[in-house]
């Protein structure tokens, strides 16, 4: 089953000289796939990922999520899809510095109508799944980079998404932590999760099913 399908995606950043960041990109991702995207800096990887995550809209072309065209969706519908279908992992973790590990993991659930009693037990479960059951009440400042990224992984799972988008999740980590994160993502993928990951690291990319190479806004 195809979970995400792009047909001739175009993204033009307007400016003095309109910049074509995506140039007729077509690809399709099967449910349960673990895909890595590689390419030189500025080739449009993040741009593509943002469109796949409904954070941004393409200038042209079509993007179907679970077979549904997304072009005509309003912000409310896009937000709902993003909330329930997509989990994000960022290079710089993007945790809330004032919230505890537990509250950070619980945060996406706060935007759903999961009952308040269910939220924290589920967050605890997720923390255990990434091996942070002993750090529940620490804040991100008290954690190592690797631990932070594990919190982010747990957070991305909070609303049981159908797809995880990770933009250079190991970009800020040493090789040991990077390997840990890759192992974690592989475990998730083994459990059936679709993962699309941008990376600059060949070793990391080698651990995925398929690697998409990009250059100047095109898939090569």
């Amino acid at each position: 089953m195809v979970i995400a399908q792009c047909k001739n995606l175009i993204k033009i950043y307007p400016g003095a000289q309109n910049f074509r960041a995506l140039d007729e990109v077509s690809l399709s991702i099967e449910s349960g796939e673990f895909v890595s995207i590689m390419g030189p800096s500025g080739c449009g990887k993040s741009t593509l990922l943002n469109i796949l995550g409904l954070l941004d809209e393409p200038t042209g072309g079509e993007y179907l999520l679970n077979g549904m065209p997304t072009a005509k969706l309003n912000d409310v519908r896009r937000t709902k899809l993003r909330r329930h279908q997509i989990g994000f992992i960022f290079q710089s973790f993007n945790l809330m510095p004032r919230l505890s590990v537990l509250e950070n993991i619980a945060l996406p659930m706060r935007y759903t109508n999961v009952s308040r009693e269910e939220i924290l037990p589920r967050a605890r479960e997720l923390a255990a799944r990434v091996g942070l059951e002993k750090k529940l009440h620490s804040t991100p400042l008290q954690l190592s980079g690797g631990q932070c990224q594990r919190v982010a992984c747990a957070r991305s799972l909070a609303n049981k998404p159908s797809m995880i988008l990770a933009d250079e999740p190991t970009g800020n980590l040493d090789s040991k932590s990077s390997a840990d994160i890759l192992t974690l993502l592989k475990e998730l993928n083994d459990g059936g999760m679709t993962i699309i990951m941008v990376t600059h690291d060949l070793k990391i990319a080698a651990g995925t099913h398929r690697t998409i190479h990009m250059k100047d806004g095109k898939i090569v």
Partner: protein
Amino acid sequence: MRLPDLMATGWTEIWAHKMRSFLSFFAIAIGIATFFYTLSILSQKYSRLHDAAEIAGAGRLETKTFHPLTLVQYKDLKMRLPEGSSLSFTTEASWVQSGEGWNTLFHKGNQLVGSIVYGILPSFKDADFVYRLEGRFINWQDVENKSRVIVLVVFPHEKKKKEWHGWWERENVLTLEDYSAHHHLLQQQVVLNNQTFTVVGILHLPTQDKDLRLENKREWIPTLYIPFTTWYDLYSNENENRQVSIRVVTGKESTARNAAGTLTSYLRSQFGPEEKPEIEFFRDKIEKHVKNARKSLNNMLFMGIIAMIAGGIGIMNVTMAVIFSRTKEIGIRRALGASRKDILFQFVVEAMLLGLCGAVAGMILGYMAVLHLAEDTSQMTFSWWVVALSVLIALVTSFLFALYPAWQAAKLKPVEALKNE
């Protein structure tokens, strides 16, 4: 996001930036203090006026004349008024010098102090009589005989409010209540302007919070009542027209206008057609008081509104700064599934929490102002509606002023917000 979560988020942020939060709610606090002060005084004034109207009874009217009135005229006029009406004449105040023996009673340091004397009729106590009487009151016999008898007015002991400005020193005035607490005054002979009087009664006024009359300003000079006729004998002379107040209480609102007509025509028949007594109905008087109270408080309210606008701009300013410094956070929250509404509410709720802090601080300030600035705090009651209204005003102000910046934040595109560092 649910309200408790929004409030928890807001509170965390406010707490994390205590100084900034404090500065921004300070202006709100000042505005609320002004409102709280004004509303407290206003509510007190209203309830007082209501009570005053109640105790004065229905169909009460007053007028003044500069012609001397006699007992014959009293009886004549009383007959013409509706049955059951009360009629009372009271002279204006006359200043008398206390004589021998009496001197020691009223002095301020070494300085001799006089007293004020009113000539009254026994019917004086028919309306709004709220005294406790020791001895007896002036009776008709005293009036007929022009007796030299005195009823003393004794104000109650009241806890003296500490004056914050301190220029008004009451400390060294020896008041009647101080004196009467230690001395037996009934039946004592006293001299006023070389005339010997006998004290036959002492009126004890209730404390100010229980005194519901409209005009119950405390006198710091000893106040004495003597028979109406005695007063005329001693303190008026041919060359000087002294003023007499005439008070009629008919007991019914409906008969008051009639009584006013009777009174006017009677005075005309006695003193000629140029006599044009100005009749003041008690109900109108109350209304006038209410109007005056409102007018003076309107100015205060205006100041309060200005302060609230300043406070609102403060809130708006801080909300804008907060949003600017937390753009990245907005992006992250959007990526995690926050809708525009969630973002809007997050900042509005945070601002309203700030407003609430301002309201609490403002009410404490306002309450202190009431305690220290209001002329008369004895009747000050703590009313919940004033608290509720102050909180409401603060919440509405911060809501309105936070709305625009919060809307700007909600409008941000997720990618653009996320790119912000």
